[in-house]
């Protein structure tokens, strides 16, 4: 009886865990989808203000962060391939690189936000309240959406961190790779969302 029970909880279905991850990714996309709707409605209502406010953002920093995330997506994908090929050391190096890139992204974000806040642009600031409604909405959305995205970066980082240690101690390996694959999937999602955020806030003029 006890024997049988252990065998059962040990039951492992990689297809199920991947399916679960994909479903979770749907919900994340819908979560941001709600914000994209709000963004579109307000942009439609205040086209001129959104246009002018967007010019306040630093395209260079945004571009750098985009490139960083794209590279990190690549390194995470490569780490999965490396593990599939059984190269544990390379996997760890690539995963570590991904994590470092994520940290660089966050540091950039910190300075970008810091500069805005330094100029008295943050939700509820007196200066922002003195601007037009379109400006308030633009910067409100900017802080909320990039902030939520940054939280997702942190969550992804945590997930990849767990994967890192499990690869290291061998419980995630060539034959039981699901956790790493799912971590990678999640990371691509985080990347993908940024790929939408970047043009919406920095590029469309």
């Amino acid at each position, binding site marked *: 009886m006890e024997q049988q029970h252990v065998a059962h909880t040990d039951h492992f279905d990689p297809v*199920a865990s991947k*399916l*679960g991850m994909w*479903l979770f990714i749907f919900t994340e996309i819908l979560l941001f989808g709600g914000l994209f709707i709000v963004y579109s409605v307000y942009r439609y209502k*205040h086209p001129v203000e959104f246009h002018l406010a967007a010019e306040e953002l630093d395209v260079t920093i945004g571009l750098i962060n985009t490139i960083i995330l794209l590279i990190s997506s690549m390194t995470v994908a490569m780490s999965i391939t490396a593990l599939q090929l059984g190269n544990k050391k390379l996997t760890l190096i690539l995963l570590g690189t991904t994590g470092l890139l994520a940290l660089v992204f966050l540091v950039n974000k910190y300075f970008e936000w810091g500069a805005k806040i330094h100029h008295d642009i943050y939700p509820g600031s007196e200066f922002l309240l003195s601007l037009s409604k379109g400006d308030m909405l633009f910067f409100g959305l900017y802080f*909320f959406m990039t902030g939520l995205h940054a939280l997702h970066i942190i969550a992804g980082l945590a997930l990849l961190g767990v994967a890192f240690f499990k690869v290291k101690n061998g419980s995630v390996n060539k034959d039981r790779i699901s956790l790493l694959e799912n971590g990678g999937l999640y990371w691509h999602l985080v990347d993908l969302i940024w790929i939408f955020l970047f043009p919406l806030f920095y590029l469309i003029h």
Partner: protein
Amino acid sequence: MTGNSSTHRLPSYLEYQGKYTGIRSWILSTDHKRIALLYLYSQIFFFLAGLVMGLFMKLELIAPGQQIMGPQAYNALFTVHGLTMIFLFIIPGLAASFGNFMIPIMIGAKDVAFPKLNLFSWYLFIAGAVIILVGIFSGDGPPDTGWTFYAPYSLKTNTNVVLSVFGAFVLGFSSILTGLNFIVTIHRMRAPGMGFFRMPLFIWSLYGTAWIQLLATPVVGITFLMVVADRLLDIGFFDPAKGGDPVLYQHLFWIYSHPAVYIMILPAMGAITEIIVTFSRRTVFGYKAIAMSSLAIAFVGYLVWGHHMFTSGMSETARLIFSFLTFLVAIPSAIKVFNWTATMYKGSISLEPPFWWAMAFIFIFMIGGLTGLILGSVSTDVHVHDTMFVVAHFHYIVFGGAGIAFFAALHYWYPKMFGKMYNKKIANWGLIGLFVGFNTTYLPMFFLGFMGMPRRYYDYLPQFADLNLLSTVGSWVMATSLLLVIVNLLRAKKGTPEEMDNPWGGRTLEWTIESPPSLENFEEIPVIDREPYELKSK
């Protein structure tokens, strides 16, 4: 697939001794059946709490003028009543309790796909409840916005809205994870031979529900987060003073909250289907039609949210389209009702309590559904919008529909879950009392609404006095009967295995195993070689 006749019986999931003992063997257990009971008990607890609040509201409304509370207390009470009943009782609903218990068993599996995630969902559920509770008793008092949290009032009121909204967000997360778990379970864990079209219809309804949970909940989740951000960070997403649009809030809220109605009612319909098939002693009429109507409801239900906003400011075209789609969604619901009746036709019906509960469901649900059409057509809705008519309508659906189905399911699966049988006579009398009390409470509200009595007020004009008095008396009958029903269930008696394993002559898989089931449900995973409701299993 024996079990009935086998002489040796494994310890049931209630007796099983695992790693932990006492309370920890419950709150740390990843057994889907124990988690189901955790949900069941918590939900019934919240239901009773909400019931008491409802009774106090009805007492306040017994006569014109102030009776036992002032306006602020009444506003808080209907808000917390709504929050409790919606988010803590009926949205987890039949899925979290009976779904959790029955899905693995009915598809021939030992557990759900992600047992730990399942337990985690329950933790989130309790965490959300605690957050809401803290919100009620801390800060500047319980929220007074109504459970809908409409902006801009939810941004302006001094009451403690943030915690309630955040609690609802956490509950949404719990609901999403449960849905996810169920979808994967149904896809991956079906026993050999059980194709999608050999699944019991309860499973089909839960499958549709799970997709709604998954696809609709994130939208309200982000909306609630925006409300929190508006209040804490002063962003102004929905605050017109800062350019925000309160009507946009309503859209986002109802994009979830209409489909949420189907999260409540679909599993209810699924359970009713099981009951009717079992007690009609016939195979189901229109299996595929019922299965597909679950999916159709899930899909079309996504597109009708605007009917809550006919008077909020929408273009004429939008109102016509939403009205039309609302009428469309009535079709799959009606398909189910017709198929139930056709299933009973020429059946040799056995008149046991669960069957009577199912009949009460159909009757009340039909009134709820038909009055829904009055609300769904723009011209009549403009007249009764935000009146007691609406309150009556949704109580007919969520309480008379989903709530009664919850109790129907409880009476149906009680012997399976606990190995005990309640007193059937008392169960029937309880139902009769509930049925009479329910209609006495809520039927007058339709008339009150038509006469123009608005909802969400602690006071009313003298001409509404008589019907309100009647309604309040009805609420006492209803509450007493509910108490009777619950006490009767608690006093159920243990029966022998022969009596309990399959007391109703059910044909789905759960009736082929022991009552209460063993830890792993099946000693050996069954191989399915028949349709779910086939009369003679080979």
